[in-house]
């Protein structure tokens, strides 16, 4: 589209290991001015990506954490009726009670729209909300404007934000929603990619530890009948735990002696299963 977009192309950030494919998709979505929908196992860096984009483009990041009970209007603006009622009773705030606009507060989307600079808007875990929320939100993002009914005013986006939407795929998103987004599924990184990721997070990590930890980690992940398989996030915490333990010897990992299992398996059933499986193989 415009030269402006092409000049601000996304190439990666300091704490995020980007695969080429994903970088391309991000750039195409930015050029098309379409929201990018990211799906993937929890802990594969969906949220991190938005942070990385904001960092590399030098734009402020606005995060909307979607909750299951959330109404769209909460994401746009809030009419603070309680304060207004309070002011009208006691009248000591200096605000003009008859002007409702004084009691309108912008929500996350509203803030991204009214910001003076271009922002990255991350809508995190959209799948938690119901379909009405999703469809209505896409309407707003499509038209880049919304109405504040209480004061009969339309808020238009000063700058079209770069929109990243993440989903953990608990529910399928509706067709019209999907139709308006670009889509990418972040697959779980392979061991080689994982090596790079670990390197980025622990620049001076002991090589034996990294190798053995990653190997043990992938072996644990392959264990059958595990409900919540440990992801990158767990691996990073696990390595952090192991390197802070002075008694720990990375060579033991090879022998199936795995410490801090609780960092990797957070569901009690999974934990129990992991313990029994390990006991059997040792």
């Amino acid at each position, binding site marked *: *589209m415009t030269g402006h977009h*092409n000049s601000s192309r996304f190439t990666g950030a300091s704490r995020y290991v980007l695969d080429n*494919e994903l970088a*391309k*998709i991000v*750039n*195409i*979505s930015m*050029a*098309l001015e*379409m929201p*990018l*929908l990211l*799906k993937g196992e929890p802990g594969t860096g969906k949220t991190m990506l938005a942070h990385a984009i904001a960092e590399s483009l030098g734009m402020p990041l606005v995060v909307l954490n979607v909750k299951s009970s959330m109404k769209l209007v909460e994401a746009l603006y809030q*009419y603070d*009726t*309680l304060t*207004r*009622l309070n002011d009208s009773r006691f009248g000591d705030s200096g605000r003009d009670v008859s002007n409702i606009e004084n009691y309108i507060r912008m929500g996350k989307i509203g803030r991204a729209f009214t910001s003076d600079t271009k922002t990255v808007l991350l809508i995190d875990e959209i799948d938690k909300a119901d379909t009405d929320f999703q469809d209505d939100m896409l309407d707003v993002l499509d038209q880049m404007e919304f109405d504040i009914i209480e004061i009969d005013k339309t808020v238009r986006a000063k700058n079209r934000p770069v929109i990243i939407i993440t989903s953990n*795929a*608990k529910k*399928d998103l509706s*067709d019209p929603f*999907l*139709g308006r*987004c*670009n*889509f*990418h*599924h972040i*697959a779980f990184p392979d061991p080689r990619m994982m090596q790079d990721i670990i390197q980025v997070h622990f620049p001076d990590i002991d090589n034996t530890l990294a190798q053995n930890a990653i190997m043990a980690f992938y072996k644990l992940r392959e264990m*059958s*009948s*595990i*409900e*919540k*398989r440990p992801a990158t996030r767990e691996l990073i915490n696990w390595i952090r735990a192991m390197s802070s333990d002075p008694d720990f010897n990375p060579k033991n990992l090879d022998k199936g002696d795995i410490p801090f299992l609780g960092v990797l398996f957070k569901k009690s*059933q999974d934990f129990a299963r992991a313990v029994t499986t390990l006991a059997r193989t040792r």
Partner: protein
Amino acid sequence: MFIDFFYKLKNLGIPVSPTSFLTLHKAIETGLVMSLDDFYTASRSILIKSERYFDVFDQVFAHHFKGADLPDPSEKELAETIRFLLEFWLKDPKTLADTMGIDENQLAKLTPEELVEYFKERLKDQEGRHDGGNRWIGTGGTSPVGHSGYHPGGMRVGGISRNKSAVKVALERRYKDYSKRGPLSQAMMGEALKRLRNLVPEGPKDKVNVEASIYQTMKNAGEIEIVFDRSLRDRLKVILAIDNGGWSMEPYVQTVQTLFDHARAQFKELKIFYFHNTIYDNLWQDPGRRRDHMNVEEFVRFDPQTRFILVGDASMAPYELLARDGTIYVQDRSTMPSIERLKFLADTFARTAWLNPVPAKMWPYTPTIDMVAKIFPMFELTLDGLEEAVNHLATSHN
């Protein structure tokens, strides 16, 4: 441009919309798409909206730009069946030879390649005849190793991979695990579990939502308005009856059991019973179907609101279902045709579902599946089927 490509995707059942196709062209105009690699990424992210279709997309892409084989279900099923036959032959050559009516020693002389060719010929023969006796021949659907869509196609060679890396990537079929067709597997456990988690009944609207009440009241300038929310009703009771007899069900028993086991916390009560092929006088509480049994008539004692879920292929000889002495096992007593027992259970419980690992398109070819499906609402044992079943089971008590 690429209209062919677009229609190939559409014909293989990927929901691609014309709008997204236009968007793709817009993307090409931006100048960001400069190589086939770029085109692969761009077209996938714009046209395909779910990772379930990534695998089919990869195949179509490889086919369109490199001439690799398109997925052909019938051929693939054939390959799967042959593979199963081979495995079976390795384990138990005698039974197989007997069933196929050939001499075991003669088979043993063949090289693996010859063996495969031989099986192939036999299967092609068999397809025309459909004589219910050897039911694992001819119907690729009952093969326990899966059917079209999920497995990478057993013996087929995935085509040639040279030059273009996007095609190479597509040929690797990295996303085949996410493909939505194909029976439930361990890999899909997490996803399936999420479907099952939807099995929560809704309660009456009798809980005060304090925050919303305050907001509404303030909005009414102080006139009190109380907002009610739905409270969760008692959790569900579930009885799971699994057909764990014979090899045809073997791959699924473990998966289904683990699945429900993980979801146990979701239910108020989960009971697991076992049967073979169909239900006669008793259901068994031990997987070996020997020790603890419970008479079907006693099931009236359970809460009728219990969700009764059966898992089985419902494929058997019709007399097993219809005859008074239909059972093929001595320990199963049968004083009434099995079909009556099934009807009795269906009447006892308000909500029932039968999950069948046989793909739905194969159901019409097995008469007993049809008969059973008339009694219990039947769903495929796939992600989609499970979702439908959960929707069916969760809907209101009536």
